[in-house]
């Protein structure tokens, strides 16, 4: 009996329990439905939950636990000659047993008889069925594989029995409890509450898990490179991690990367903030509803463009354009046509990232500006202020904390942005202030360090996790601070 069939049976039992419980509830009401504490549907759902939920939980646990137990048994059966060689050959042998066991299931009874009697080799028979084997089977293999299959069959049968019995027992238990005053609604709502709780805790636990894995890898990195040389080092030169070389001679200074990250983010904000803010003011204060209803979604389309596309745009269009313009300018001034802006530069990455950020700034600020109560605008206009005076002196000051929060959220995006800088900023880890030269960012180096063939025990690779956790800490702080400011602002009007 396979698992999906068991699943189906449990669902059918649940469905049946639903209808039986429903009709029981209706009968117990003696035709006066208002006597029931809960609507019949709730009684039905209650019974269905009892019939399915415990059974399915057991099914899930069984599916996870039984292969582990079976493999443990088989591992114990393996001959000493194999197990004494260490863990890798043991696992290999176990894998072989399992693949042979799966292969055996494909054989007909006759073929199986020939194999067990030894008149045909296992390898050839299985190969004919499309199950390749590296070498002729060791003697223990066939017996172990047959044991494996037997254990699996038993387990499957036991599981089917337990799950179905549990399902029926649950349904019976629930059905016995059903009576008019029974508070089925509250019970069902408790289960729903539990489901909601589970969903939100999955999101939180995943975050915790990600942080945990990053932290543990970062700690491994800090075992070979001291935190002070990482956080305060001014040279980024990780060298290549040749396999087996262990090579910790590289220098892992965070500062050049951090400087590049912040510099590019700063240039991006320099472009995005004025444009985005002005766009938001226009949208919120001046645009007629018809214009707004078209222009706002259009602006937000910018936010939907994948950042890799912005990366192309920077690499193919903006970078070369800036380079050529700078060459022309230089030629006009000095007569020497040499470009002073590199195609890959802080400026290129900053401008393109700024374009990407415009919709974030404008959309968030627009929401905050429109949240400023109309009564404040009326008050100012009623005193004879013009629209722009009202915006400058009343609306923007009132919205300022919220706007600052929005800008911080945007900045944290700029810091974490990857694809644009990978393509547009270059890979040279330098500390300098010329925006026309290439610089690199934390995210670019994470990509660099994790691309290609890697061994996950050299500092060259592990440094990516240290960089990642640093970046995470920076953006987390920015986000928390931004949320704090936004929340504080919200209290002012509510």
């Amino acid at each position, binding site marked *: 009996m396979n698992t999906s069939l068991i699943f189906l049976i449990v669902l059918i039992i649940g469905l049946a329990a639903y209808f039986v419980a429903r009709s029981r509830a209706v009968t117990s009401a003696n035709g006066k439905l208002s006597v029931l504490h809960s609507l019949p549907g709730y009684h039905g759902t209650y019974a269905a939950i009892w019939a399915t939920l415990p059974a399915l939980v057991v099914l899930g646990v069984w599916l996870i636990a039984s292969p582990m137990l079976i493999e443990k048994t088989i591992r114990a059966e393996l001959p000493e000659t194999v197990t004494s060689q260490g863990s890798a050959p043991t696992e290999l042998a176990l894998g072989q047993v399992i693949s042979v066991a799966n292969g055996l299931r494909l054989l007909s009874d006759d073929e199986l008889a020939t194999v067990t009697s030894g008149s045909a080799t296992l390898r050839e028979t299985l190969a004919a069925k499309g199950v390749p084997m590296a070498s002729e089977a060791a003697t223990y293999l066939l017996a172990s594989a047959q044991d494996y299959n037997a254990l699996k069959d038993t387990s499957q049968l036991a599981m089917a029995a337990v799950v179905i019995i549990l399902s029926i027992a649950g349904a019976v238990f629930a059905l016995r409890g059903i009576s008019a005053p029974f508070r089925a609604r509250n019970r069902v709502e408790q289960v729903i509450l539990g489901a909601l709780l589970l969903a939100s805790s999955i999101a939180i636990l995943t975050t915790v898990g990600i942080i945990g894995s990053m932290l543990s890898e970062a700690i491994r990195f800090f075992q070979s490179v001291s935190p002070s040389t990482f956080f305060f080092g001014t040279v980024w030169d990780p060298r290549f991690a040749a396999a087996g070389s262990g090579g910790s001679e590289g220098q892992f200074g965070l500062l050049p990367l951090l400087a590049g990250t912040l510099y590019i983010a700063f240039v991006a904000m320099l472009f995005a903030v004025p444009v985005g803010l002005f766009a938001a003011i226009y949208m919120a204060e001046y645009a007629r509803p018809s214009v707004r209803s078209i222009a706002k979604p259009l602006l937000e389309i910018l936010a939907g463009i994948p950042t890799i596309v912005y990366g192309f745009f920077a690499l193919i269009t903006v970078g070369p354009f800036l380079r050529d313009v700078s060459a022309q300018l230089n030629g006009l001034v000095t007569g020497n046509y040499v470009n002073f802006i590199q195609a890959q530069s802080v400026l290129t990455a900053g401008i393109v990232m700024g374009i990407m950020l415009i919709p974030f700034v404008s959309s968030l600020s627009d929401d905050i500006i429109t949240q400023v109560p109309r*009564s*404040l605008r*009326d*008050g100012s*206009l*009623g005193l*004879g*202020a013009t629209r722009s005076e009202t915006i400058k002196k009343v609306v923007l*000051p009132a919205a300022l904390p919220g706007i600052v929060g929005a800008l911080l959220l945007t900045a944290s995006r700029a810091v974490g942005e990857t694809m644009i800088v990978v393509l547009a900023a270059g890979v040279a880890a330098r500390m300098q202030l010329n925006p026309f030269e290439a610089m690199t960012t934390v995210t670019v180096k994470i990509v660099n360090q994790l691309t290609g063939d890697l061994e996950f025990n050299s500092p060259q690779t592990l440094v990516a996790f240290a960089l990642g956790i640093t970046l995470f800490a920076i953006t987390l702080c920015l986000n928390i601070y931004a949320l704090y400011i936004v929340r504080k602002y919200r209290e*002012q009007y509510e």
Partner: protein
Amino acid sequence: MNMMSEAAVEKALDQKMTTVPYKMIGKDVSVYYGDKRALFDVNLNVRENTVTALIGPSGCGKSTFLRTLNRMNDTIDNCRVTGKITLDDGDIYDAKIDVVELRARVGMVFQKPNPFPKSIYENVTYGPKIHGLARAKAELDQIVEQSLQKAGLWNEVKDRLHEPGTGLSGGQQQRLCIARAVAVSPEVILMDEPCSALDPIATAKVEELIHELRTNFTIVIVTHSMQQAARVSQRTAMFHLGNLVEENDTDKMFTNPDDQRTQDYIMGRFG
């Protein structure tokens, strides 16, 4: 309206209402919100240094009319005004009129107190600064003190002028808004249900204030409270379904109105 009772004479500070000149004249005023017509050819005049109350059931157009007087309706999309409104014989809907200047002459106090999230001092100086009414700080200080005194708020806030205006109580906030309007030295002050968000004590203070302000300003007030209209106004106009039903001396309006609908509304039969 020629028959004046004793009380009305006293209330008009010994001035016969008929002799008081008109400050603002509304002629055939109609207002449309998109296709919907909210006011139907209203002819209503506002007399100088008089409190004119606009009453009527919700949605009757009294607030709409009030907002036409300083063109606050301009801020509402697809709102259209026809007819003619004059302020001292100047058409306020004339293309040459600067709406900013108009609103400086015709100030407004709103239903809900709406102090700016700034200090009390900055709230009062907001208008004067915009219109350049004061050059030195001393002048501003003087305007602040005078305005707050006129609004009856000076004694309560003189020690905390630099604290936020939003920290005051509701009634104080509304008087701050009145002070803010007064600071621009307008000629007319429009009040849109200024007491509807206040408790009875704060309401009494604001009403008293309106009474005093009449000596310097022309006041038009929209109110839902018949008692308030009777207490503070000399002239009352009754609106119903976008039409001006009746305009009369307040005393006559509340004792012996000309129109049956006014009678019914005042007696609480509808609205």
